[in-house]
């Protein structure tokens, strides 16, 4: 048998089912890699908790569907008694009293939580460099970023510390790091996965989704998370269960190629790699059609009004009164608020809170937040029009491959541009995923596929067939 940590989740479940390996052995193997964390994928690894869960599953008379396969959890998800910081100093050492619905569902299905993965503070960032606990490194090149904000979840899967993990995607925080780390990342339709227990960044955009090394694994993980949760009013049931994709052909699939995301602003190497992947889809029987998102040029501005506005309210609860960091020297209430928050939040978080507070201020609301919501509605219509003619749309996931650590930290706007390809789908609440489609300068390039709301199964089929045709090797040089 191959190295245990090279197994996909599906292979590991089969091996456990066949009695070739136990959950404890599988968990031990992954724990070893998670603990010698060259990449700083993890903020916390809980060996005892993981092994206890693995032992329980091994001892159970009936094997649960996920059979005790380890999973990494983005630190934005609340996990009972397991430190949860959302990458922020303001929650340093915070131990939640409850577990997020999606994590609880995975645990109930037999997943073993190995630990919490690093992220940009409160999911604000595209490089994982905004973590208060130090950056995560890209397994393909340790001097480069893994992407963000779910950088630790992406690197942990790429580096074989776990076969799969959970991330959250607000404007691209699953898809972009998946692209930069050469793995599969999937953002479901808004509402498909409960947000209960996901520490909110921008509530109307946030969505939890899987990272994995195969499309089938990502479908399998999602299968056990989706569905309405009474604790999240915005959660919904999918029209049909998530199925594992199996088709190898794409006959009749109409693929819209988003023109606005294939030109200026996208690195030539990335574009060439994506074009090769599109040609592969064509060879499987798909047809390619140029499509346009007329309001794409407003997407970034729209996003950077809506997300900060929501975050300015979402992060107001971190006031030092009930939990988390509280300043040591304050003499009155106002000082408690000011110092606690000044000390607890990093610069990017402060920037966005201020942006959002301004965008909602009386007298500015209509010009900023109100206007952004109107553009968002137009963008939803753009996609409605597109999907009246094609089944899925395709584009690069990220305009560039993984960039060097520190390259963009001084210039927030350049950093924000990292998400130009992923933000439109977020604003429209659509399911979208990134699959690795080749290398440019030796670094992975992601192909983004997106479909209309609730079309997860079709999207997985398209991604799966393409993945098979491309035969991308997800093992980063040097870690194989």
């Amino acid at each position, binding site marked *: 048998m191959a190295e245990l940590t090279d197994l996909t989740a599906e292979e590991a479940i089969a091996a456990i089912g066949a009695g070739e390996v136990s959950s404890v052995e599988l968990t031990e193997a992954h724990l070893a890699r998670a603990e010698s964390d060259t990449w700083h994928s993890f903020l916390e690894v809980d060996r005892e908790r993981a092994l206890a869960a693995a032992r329980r599953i091994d001892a159970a008379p009936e094997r649960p569907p996920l059979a005790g396969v380890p999973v990494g959890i983005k630190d*934005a*998800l*609340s996990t009972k008694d397991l430190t*949860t910081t*959302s990458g922020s100093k303001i*929650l340093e050492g*915070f131990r*939640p*009293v*409850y577990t*997020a619905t999606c994590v609880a569902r995975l645990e109930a299905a037999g997943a073993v939580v190995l630990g919490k993965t690093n992220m940009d503070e409160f999911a604000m960032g595209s490089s994982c460099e905004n973590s208060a606990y130090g950056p995560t490194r890209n397994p393909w090149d340790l001097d480069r970023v893994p992407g963000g904000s779910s950088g630790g979840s992406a690197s942990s899967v790429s580096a074989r510390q776990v076969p799969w993990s959970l991330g959250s995607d607000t404007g691209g925080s699953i898809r972009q790091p998946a692209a930069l780390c050469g793995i599969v990342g999937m953002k479901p339709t808004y509402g498909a996965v409960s*947000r*209960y*227990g*996901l*520490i*909110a960044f*921008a*509530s*109307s955009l946030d969505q939890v989704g899987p990272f994995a090394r195969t499309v089938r694994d990502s479908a399998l993980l999602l299968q056990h998370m989706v569905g309405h949760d*009474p*604790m*999240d*009013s*915005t959660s919904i049931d999918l029209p049909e269960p998530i199925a594992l994709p199996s088709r190898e052909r794409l006959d009749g699939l109409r693929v819209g190629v988003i023109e606005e995301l294939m030109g200026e602003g996208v690195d030539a190497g990335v574009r060439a790699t994506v074009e090769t992947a599109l040609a592969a889809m064509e060879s499987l029987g798909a047809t390619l059609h140029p499509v346009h998102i007329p309001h794409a040029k407003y997407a970034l501005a729209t996003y950077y009004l809506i997300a900060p*506005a*929501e975050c*300015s*309210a979402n992060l*107001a*609860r*971190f*006031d030092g*009164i*009930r*939990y988390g960091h509280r300043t040591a020297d304050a003499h009155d*209430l106002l000082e408690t*608020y000011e110092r606690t928050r000044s000390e607890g939040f990093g610069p990017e978080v402060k920037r966005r809170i201020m942006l959002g*507070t301004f965008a*909602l*201020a*009386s007298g500015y*609301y209509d010009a900023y*937040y109100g206007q952004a919501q109107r553009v968002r509605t137009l963008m939803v219509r753009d996609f409605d029009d597109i999907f009246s003619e094609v089944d899925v749309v395709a584009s690069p996931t990220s305009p560039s491959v993984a960039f060097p650590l520190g390259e963009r930290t001084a210039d927030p706007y350049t950093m924000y541009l990292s998400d130009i390809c992923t933000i439109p789908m977020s604003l429209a609440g659509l399911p979208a995923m990134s699959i690795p489609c080749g290398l440019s300068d030796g670094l992975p390039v992601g192909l983004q596929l997106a479909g209309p709301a609730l079309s997860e199964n079709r999207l997985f089929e398209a991604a799966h067939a393409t993945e098979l045709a491309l035969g991308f090797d997800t093992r980063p040089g040097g870690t194989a």
Partner: protein
Amino acid sequence: MSDTRWEAVIGIEIHAQLLTATKMFCGCRLSFGDDPNTHTCPICLAHPGALPVTNAEAVRLAIIAGHALGCEIPERSVFHRKNYFYPDLPKAYQISQFDEPICGPGRFRYLSDDGEHWVGITRAHLEEDAAKLTHTGGDGRRAGAERSSVDFNRGGTPLLEIVTEPDLRSGAEASAFLKQLRQTLVQLGITDGNMEQGSMRADANISVRPVGQAEFGTKTELKNMNSFTFLERGIGAEIARQIEILEDGGSVVQETLHFDPVTGDIHSLRSKEEAHDYRYFPEPDLVPVVPDRAWVDEIKAGLPELPVDRRDRWRSDLGLTFEDAEVLSESPELAAYFEAVASEASPKSAANWVRGELRAQLREVDQEPWESNVTPSALAAIIGMVEGREVSMPNAKAVLAEVVEHGGDPAEIVETKGLGAISDDSELVALVDRLLAEHADQAQQLRDGKDKLIGFFVGQAMKATQGRADPGRVGELVRERVHSA
């Protein structure tokens, strides 16, 4: 002093805690007086990642209230976040409603001794209450306190905020309106309406203007008056204060004020540093409330008779006075009790007995009519015997006392205790003649015009018959016989 005549313009904002079992956005039980922070959860403590879920029962109660207030119930309503930092607000935003409230415009009708009145209802919306802050040390307020504690048990309690149009013109009107609004909400089971405990709170927006002027003057907001008396007095004091300022040539400053019922003083409540921009925006964690129209109609159809309608009916059909109707409709139980008595006895007498003798006797034993031994039928029987002159009033009261104490059938009590009125007129004539003879001095004085002495003879007759004589008839006979004797 100028000769300008002034008119006050008053609108009221009412916050009523809803009688749901659980909080507005989480499953914590509502409770009062329990140990601090024993009814809390990740949601009402605003733990990271927790999300609100709208309480369906609160929505139902709000729709009932909306119907009772004559409000439109819009197709959909939306929750907004109202942002401000304060330790009693764990999320640092209150989930409230802004431009799409659960209840749209309406009109509320109430009656007073000078007829019926209408108050425009601007809106009614759902929101969550803040937690309870206690400041120790200093003067009990935050500034200068040594220590402040937060009890989150109250945090998240469902509130219905009702906002009226500026249709009221005096403290007395405001008080009369609020009394009947409160009674309506209480009788519909929407709130317990306890103003002292703060489960119902009222703020008043007050301005004055010269009579005849169309534009409103600058308004002030008078906060949290926790009784009808304070509301009336507070509004009166604020109107007087504003008129004084204007007559002195000054101008009213728009501010939030507090009325001190002890000193009668009004002082500014909020300083400038607490001026807020609430940055309202739609709550992305909740979906709009889109109540099923059939359900909304069903709720409307199922509404019980409103107190104002009952009062109307009692006045027109039963001939009650405004005051009778007002007092007897205080609670649904009392109203039902009265109606049961009135269905078997004359309504006017029923009203007098229920309000008068019955309540007086029951007060002694600390009981309410509907929980006492006195069934409506028993009371109606007593009333019937009095009206049929079968028992005298004093003996009727004695019968009632017996029923209050032991229950039983009034007719039987009269029978066994021999309390029946003397129905034989000749018996009374003989008695009166005897008394006139026995008290010849008084009889003479009576003949001389000292009419007061009729009472003396009636008293003697009642004494002699142990109350069985009809005092009215005895009086008549004394008048007749004193001259014929």
